[in-house]
């Protein structure tokens, strides 16, 4: 279970990524967040951006058009 959740369902690119980044900024290092969304492009956009920014992508899953990404803040 992640420390926080962020519901991005109904948001289109690039809102899910931007909302994820703004929330990460306010979190403590080491904490995890589960981001949930349904816009297809945003799933890869978020995971790729997290890797570039040095955060850990703990898990990625998808079911019925809704995806979940769990991220651990690393810096």
């Amino acid at each position, binding site marked *: 279970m992640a420390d926080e959740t962020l519901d991005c369902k*109904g*948001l*289109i690119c*690039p*809102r899910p*990524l*931007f909302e994820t*980044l*703004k929330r990460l900024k306010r979190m403590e290092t080491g904490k995890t967040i589960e981001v949930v969304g349904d816009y297809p492009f945003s799933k890869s956009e978020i995971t790729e*951006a997290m890797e*570039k*920014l040095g955060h850990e992508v703990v898990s990625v899953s998808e079911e019925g058009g809704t995806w979940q990404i769990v991220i651990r803040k690393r810096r």
Partner: protein
Amino acid sequence: MPKLTLVVFSGDFDRAFVAFTIASRAAAEGWDVLMLFTFWGLGIVRDPNRTVPKTAEAEKAFDSALARGADDLRISQTSMADLGTTMMKEQMSAKKMLPIREMMKEAKEFGVKFLVCNIPMELMGVRREEFVDEVDEVCSVGRYLEEAKDADVNLFI
């Protein structure tokens, strides 16, 4: 980290939308991003509550021709008596996108630097005190070129 500069010449709603989207997208990934607002782009960074009285005819004319801030922009096409702009704003709201003014604040939060070119300010009689707080500095073209010469991507919008 890569560096991006954008020269925002246009004061069109759709071009401003694209400019802030690209700027924020890059800054969100840690890029060093700078936006230079020039000519009609000055209207985007004007604060509608910070008006300065103008007396010269040319200054008055440009004062009314320039947008009064990011919420006063119009789209460049299908702007039938501004219906296009209204419809686009409704679409953006329906898709839960931010208004342009909020996109500007978000870009700032992601670390985008805001510069305004001094030349059109002189030509159109726009004062430093008319701008929103997000504007970091008024600068010369030379200052912009110093930034642009080692940037990885330079865009003119």
